[in-house]
């Protein structure tokens, strides 16, 4: 047993605090918007130039001029503001965004993050991820604990080209929650039905007591 995509997103949503401006990455992080706890008001930033992302539109109401950073059609909210890309990254680089929740290909025990390319195979590009991890207050990674080959994505050292050096604060996977601390990772929480031994055995990174 472990968390599924939605349970991981729901767990990540507990990281949000009232009044925060937050950037959600593509994939599982996008689902976090569905689980924002009651009484917590957060404003979602989309790096293509929007604060206050609303839900997906009803069929027939899609607007090609209104998309999120994943290029999906979205809607606006009463508090929405639009701006250009340089303004968008000024607020990211300037530390105005409290938290970014991002996906990852690999995370290392020192907080290094890799999420933009597999050399020679798959090139996606870093998009806004390098700016986000360098600029926002707190970086939370949400990802599967292992890759498709069953190997740990939580490593001693990243093997893929980095998105940022020593930037990750917390890692949420299908197996549990870990914090980047001095000397390695500290287990914060285990996913439902996952034992401490199981998490340790599935993790290449150093886990400190």
């Amino acid at each position, binding site marked *: 047993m472990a968390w599924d995509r939605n349970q991981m997103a729901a767990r990540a949503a507990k990281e949000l605090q009232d009044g925060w401006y937050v950037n959600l990455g593509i994939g599982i992080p996008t689902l976090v918007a569905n689980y924002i706890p009651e009484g917590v008001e957060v404003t979602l930033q989309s790096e293509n130039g929007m604060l206050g992302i609303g839900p997906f539109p009803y069929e027939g109401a899609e607007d090609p001029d209104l998309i999120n950073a994943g290029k999906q059609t979205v809607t606006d909210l009463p508090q929405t503001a639009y701006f250009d890309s340089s303004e968008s990254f000024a607020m990211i680089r300037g530390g105005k965004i409290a938290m970014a929740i991002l996906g990852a290909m690999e995370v290392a025990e020192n907080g290094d993050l890799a999420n933009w390319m597999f050399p020679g195979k798959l090139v996606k590009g870093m998009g806004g991820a*390098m700016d986000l991890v360098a600029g926002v207050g707190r970086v939370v990674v949400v990802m599967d604990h292992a890759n498709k080959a069953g190997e740990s994505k939580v490593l001693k050292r990243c093997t893929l080209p980095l998105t940022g050096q020593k930037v990750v604060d917390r890692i949420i996977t299908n197996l549990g929650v870990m914090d980047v601390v001095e000397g390695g990772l500290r287990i914060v929480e285990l996913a439902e039905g996952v034992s401490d031994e199981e998490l340790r055995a599935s993790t290449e990174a150093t886990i400190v007591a």
Partner: protein
Amino acid sequence: MKKVYSSAAAALDGVLKDGMLIAAGGFGLCGIPELLIKAIHEAGTKDLTIASNNCGVDDFGLGILLSSRQIRKMMSSYVGENAEFMRQYLSGELELEFNPQGTLAERMRAGGAGIPGFYTRTGVGTVIAEGKEHKDFDGETCILERGIVADLAIVKGWKADESGNVVFRKTARNFNVPAAKCGRICVCEVEEIVPTGSLDPDHIHLPGIYVHRLIQGEHEKRIEQRTTRKEA
């Protein structure tokens, strides 16, 4: 001086040159200067370097200039979801300079604002930082990034007046503002050109000083990821 031209081809007449650097607005397929891109395709201008966050899709937007091999080099942050882009890059046919998205936007903004370079924490410790000057500020290591001044900027707005003041709509503003600012010449396509004086001067997103040539036209405005929710 008249800024309004009759067509994209007319607006680009005498401006296009092989080997030039073009800054293009748009994010994904949202807010892309689709008419000007088509006109560049038809003009056959080649060996282009294009600074643009993405490169369209295979048959639309900047993707059509990739298929026709008119682009020599891209300066972009994201190329996923574009098979031809990835194929040309991995086979070495296309030069690609990856830029973090915010760095790309700021390089354009800075270039247009007369700022030749700026320091940023973005990319420190990654391949992006290789070969760039490093400098510490208040205990934080930063890298030097250069402003971009493009030979030509191609952008897309919603409405413009005949003086070149432009208003954008929703998230279609994106890279259009910084791209416009960094062009030695900026050609802007809009959905509607209105008489000078009919836009509220307090609501102008891009002042006419940045816009040299204007066209009005019909836009396809293709949606890349149509995503909806069910009726409650």
